[in-house]
Structure formats: C-alpha cells, structure tokens
C-alpha cells in the first residue's frame, strides 16, 4: 500500500502505485513470474510433492482483434475531430486512460487467466466478452 511517501500519493499527474500489495495483479504477475532469482533447488519442487499451478504471463502480441480495436478507436477519434462535441476534456482523458489501463490488464492477463482457471473465475466473465471491443473501464482488477 506504499504510495510514494514523498507526495503522499496525490496531487501529481503521475499515477502512483505498486509496492507491498499496492499494485494490480497484472503488475505483480509481470514482476514475480518473470523476474527474480531462480535457483536449481526450487526447480525440483516435485521433491516435496507440492502441486503448483503453472502460470503463463506471456505478453500477448498484436492480433486481428487488436487491429480491429484500433480501427474502431481511430474511427471514433475522427468523429471528434469532425466536430462531434467531445465530453469535458478532463473527463475524457481520464476515461480513456482508465480504459487503456484496463485494456492492458486484459491483454497481458488473458493467458494467465486461462491458466488460473476457476481460481480466478470472477475475472472470467469480462474476458468472454472482451475480444472485439475494449473492455469496459470498470470492474477489472483490485
């Protein structure tokens, strides 16, 4: 929950988070499954008869779905420039960043969620409707 002590976590334009349980699952997965010390002695877990879920945190590469998503976003962006009245700019930027951040979660975690199976079943529902459009900004993570 350590948010930057220097700023008390507020006020700036940079979003703060992570560190000691403060990050989202996607950030955590990226760190602790991909990085950190690996020693031979841990590889032989079978020795102690422990069952471990293999979690695959591969970064998802651009796919047709990604392209369609960007095509859709681009067409939407053009509407704005042709004078459709945009929402209040601040609000707009915010909703987009949120959408963006959650989008990332969905992409990077697709594979992982698969692997987590029912252990993370609550995260599954939005995954099923994810492929075409941007995931809705809410109800992800945390």
């Amino acid at each position, binding site marked *: 929950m350590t948010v930057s002590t220097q700023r008390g976590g507020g006020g700036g334009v940079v979003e703060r988070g992570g560190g000691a*349980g403060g990050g989202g699952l996607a950030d955590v997965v990226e760190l602790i499954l991909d990085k950190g010390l690996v020693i031979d002695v841990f590889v032989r877990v079978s020795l102690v008869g422990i069952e471990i879920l293999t979690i695959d945190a591969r970064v998802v590469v651009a796919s047709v779905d990604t392209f369609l998503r*960007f095509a859709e976003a681009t067409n939407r962006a053009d509407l704005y420039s042709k004078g459709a009245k945009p929402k209040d700019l601040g609000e707009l*930027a915010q909703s*987009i960043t949120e959408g963006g951040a959650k989008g990332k979660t969905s992409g990077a975690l697709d594979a992982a969620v698969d692997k987590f199976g029912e252990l993370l079943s609550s995260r599954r529902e939005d995954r099923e409707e994810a492929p075409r459009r941007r995931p809705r900004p809410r109800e992800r993570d945390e």
Partner: protein
Amino acid sequence: MSDMVSETQTEQPVEGEEELVTPVYVYGLVRVGTQIPDDLPGLGPSGRVSVIEHGDIAAIVSDIPLDRPLGTRNDLLAHEAVVDTVAANEAVVPMRFPAVTAEEAVVEELLAPNEEHFLAVLDDLEGRVQYTLKGRYVEDAVLGEVLQRNTEIRALQDKISELPEDASYYDRVRLGELVVKVLEQQREEDGAQILDRLEPFAVSVVANEPGQPEDVVNAAFLVQRDRLREFDDAVENLGQDLDGRIRLRLLGPLAPYDFVPPE
C-alpha cells in the same frame, strides 16, 4: 497455448523415504540483521513469515498450504507484499514465484553453497531500490496525431466509412494494423526520450518491451535511496510535460526484480 494449467500432481513419494520433508516457501534473501516486520502476510496456513539464517545471509520463508495447489491470486500478492515491504527499507534479493523447497535444503542447498555470491549481490543492491515506470498513450490524442500525419490511414478510413460493416472487415484489419505500426514507430522515439530524461537519476535502467501497442515505455530504475526525492521530482516533471499525450504510472518502491543477476 500448450502449457495449460498443468496440475503437476507429482507421484507420491516412495514409501518411507521422503515423508518427513517439510516444504517451505522462500520469498527472498537478505543480510542477517535486516528488519523483517512481524506482520508480513505469509501465504501459508500460519499466515506468518520467518527467517532461516546461515552465516551472514538469511532467507525469508514461511509455511505453505498443503491442501490446495499454490498459485492463486492471493499467493502471488503475498509473495509480492513480503518482498516489497522489506525492500521499502532494506536490500533484498527477490525470488521468482514460486520458490518452494524442503526445509533442510534452505541451508544445505540454497544458503550455504551460495553465501558469498548472495552477499555480493546484496552489496550491489545496498542503499538502492527499484521503481518501475509505465507509460501509455492517451489514445485519442495520439490517434489524432496518427491520422493527421498519415494519408494512407485517412484514405482507408474514408473508404471504410462508405462501406457497410460486413464489407469493410479486411480494410478495418488493415487500418488497425497500420495504426499499430505507426504507434510502434512512434514509441521508439517517445520511449527513448522518457528514458533519457530519467536515466541521470538512476544507478541503472532496464527497458522492458512494452506489451501493448499503446504502451510507450515499461522500464525499471534502480535508484539510490538518498536520491529518491530527485528521481520522484523528475518523474513528476516529466509527467507534466507529457500530460494529455502520455500517461505515466510509477510503481514502487519495489524489490529489485529487474536487477537480480541471471543464474
């Protein structure tokens, strides 16, 4: 998508041979004497974390659940919380998840044979802590730029707008592909600028590959603890300069995941 949840249920240990093995979870390594808060949330049934020491090196460990497979969301978060809490104040070498071994092996196979090496790694990390910076384009802002500069994309867009949705499928895929390509070129430049601005405030930088097309940067910075303020200010200033176009997220303090030597 081959390696699915492989429930690596291992064969039962041979009768009478390995029944006495007690499994432990290892979170990370520290110097003996490092402050380990009492209330760290272990992932085992006891909920507690302790240390096993050998010479000058210690492993942060806990029990593990035996009635279910390891690897739930809470297991991952516990691992991270333990190492990052310690890392907030002191040097720690984080393990990669999942690090399980037999209790006796912690000293015999982990600490004793590698003591010198681990101490050297900890020396390098002394007084330093990791921050990870992620930057992402503000989508509409940057798509506007892309459209303005690229006539091919605009032409394709016009064509699509005149076709019924079914008929424009391939053009839409092509349009998205072009946009993604432009974004990926664009981030080379933007990402490099971001790193240039922050590099002077870090001891070391690791630039990871951004995951999604709209991600600009994903970099780990090893920062001297006594320069955290400067680093933080630099990130904030940069965030202000980029505001409206690139949104920055700063994660930390973190254990130095990106600065653990390989092997």
